[in-house]
């Protein structure tokens, strides 16, 4: 169990989790400015909560993902659609981000981009649990806590989502 988070320790936790959170959000929304906004909101919300209820925070890792997940879902609800960007726009964004890094060729992520395209067509909750499981490598227990459902429910939900994805990708 992680120690209780106090305000003065917050920046230490920020340094540790920033990259994970912005990548998690970025892989979902595929738009850099949007991802930065949601990340900022996530950490500011976390800071406000720490000020008031720091003794209640038992596991910062799961807790910050929970806030990020809620922010992403809220973003979708505000937009009214899953994603307003076209495939071409998303690919351009993706390339831009990778070019900034100047280390990786975009071609090696062709399979990921294909999966990502199909994930967009699932419900946000379904795509989120797949992303948390396969891209963020979270355990069932952690994901269940993040999305606030029972672990058994999560397993069956994940299987259903995978089936849908499989049908779309036609992977054997």
């Amino acid at each position: 169990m992680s120690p209780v988070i106090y305000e003065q320790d917050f920046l230490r936790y920020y340094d540790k989790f920033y990259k994970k959170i912005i990548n998690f959000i970025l892989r979902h929304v595929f738009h850099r400015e949007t991802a930065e906004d949601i990340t900022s909101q996530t950490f500011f919300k976390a800071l406000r909560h720490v000020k008031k209820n720091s003794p209640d925070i038992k596991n910062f890792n799961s807790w910050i993902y929970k806030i990020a997940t809620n922010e992403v879902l809220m973003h979708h609800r505000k937009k009214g659609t899953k994603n307003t960007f076209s495939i071409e726009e998303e690919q351009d964004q993706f390339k831009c981000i990778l070019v900034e890094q100047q280390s990786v060729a975009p071609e090696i992520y062709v399979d990921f981009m294909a999966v990502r395209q199909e994930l967009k067509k699932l419900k946000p909750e379904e795509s989120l649990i797949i992303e948390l499981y396969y891209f963020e490598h979270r355990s069932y227990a952690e994901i269940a806590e993040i999305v606030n459902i029972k672990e058994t429910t999560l397993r069956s939900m994940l299987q259903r989502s995978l089936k849908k994805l499989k049908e779309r990708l036609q992977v054997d």
Partner: protein
Amino acid sequence: MDKELKGIDKHLKNLRIPEADNKAHEKALRSLLSTEIERTRKRRNIFALSIVKYALPVAAVLILVFGLWFFVLRDFLWPESTVNIVSVQGTVYERTALDKENRSVLKQGEYKKGTVLSTEKDNTITFSMGKNTQVKLLELSQIELRTLGYSDTVENSSLFLSNGKIECSVEMPGTDSLFEVLTDYTRIRVYGTKFSVQVLDNKDVLIQVKEGIVKIDNFYRAEENVASIKDTVPTIDKELGELLDNAIITINKQQELRIDYKEIATRNTKLEDFLDQIWAVHLSPYAEEGEKKLGFRGIIYGIKAVVDPNEFIEQDLRDSAEIESEAEPDVEQPESTTESGAPVAKNETSLQIEETERKPQRILYLPTNAGVEQGLGIPSGWYKSENTNIFSWTDEVAHTGNKSIKIASADKRDRECAWAYTLTTDLPFGKQFTLKAFVKTEEIKGQGVCLTLRADDTTTASGKAEMYVTTQGKRVIKGSRDWTEYTINFATPLAYEINSITIYLIYLPNTKGSVSFVSAVRDLLYNPHLT
């Protein structure tokens, strides 16, 4: 994982996941969060500093002001009340709670509350309190100044007399004021009088009233009484009543009360008033053997609880029945041409006098209760010619107040009977005496009922009546009539030799039915203080 999903599972696990590195945003966001944290910290520090900077000095000033008021200004503006020594004879000691030993009292000085003053043999001390109150502590006495508080309009003083005797002359500025003397068993409250209190060696308390009125409570000490008695006591402190001029009261540890009045014969009205106010005290009609003065010994029911109150009532009834049956044989009327049981023949006077002398108090101490509202089982002061169940004191019907007295017989009776009331005090000599009464009848058949007044030169209705008047033969009271007012009066002003007036509600022979009676309320009956 299902077999069919193994392919997609493996495919997803083998995916190369892109990871971005957004250093610029990370740095900017970190800076913003850091600023926010710093701002919060400063805000908290400012709050803490403001408490130190403002609240603490304010609190310190308040404490200083309060302390100044409490220790300096209070004594200056509202000086603590003291007693002033007027005179000291011999050696008198004083001691406060802080003192281990007694100190000699100076010839002049002031003493605050909590001081204990004590005298030795043949020594006395006199001190003044408030404006016009003086207390003299006699020899071998000890008193503690419990409460001292005087202003222009109110004085409150409380002294505790543990032993010995004090004499007090009290004059209070207003009705809100109170001067009281406490002993182990008694509290004496005073509203302006001269009196003395003495605690005897056996802790009995002797209170002598020289002038004015004092009010007395007795204390009940539970630890000194057995449990069974405690159980019967609903309230442990009870007001005993007021003592008037020339009264001497003794209260002993057994909670027995003895009251002696000087000039008892002329002051019995006030005595009655006093006794009427005593809470639940049974007044024995028998003075103790050897008591030359008329005296009483009262036992407080609630505390002593040795006798059931009803037993006393029954005893009273038996006593009165004996008196009345001898006083009023169903006889013919000596003066009047009509029949009535009220007056008796002259030749029976000696017998009656003997009886009266043996039990004179029965008549002497009747409280004024013409309205028949007060009493315990029987209206105070009223008595019946016989002790049968045709008589009742009821609240079923009432005219003025809540009660009435009643005579009701289903069958015709062969002899008469009566409710009676004798007035012995504050008689309106030289004036007309009028009785106003209200009578309600229900199916009274036969001769009916009558109202009768008689006046005697004795304190009881005995022998030949000096003055006599009745409604019998003049006004028929029978049938069924709602409350009707009747007024009768003596033909001549009340003679000076008269010592008692007796009122009768007579249920004549050969009568049946129900009659209820309320004499006019006390003031209407006759109140010498109003005329």
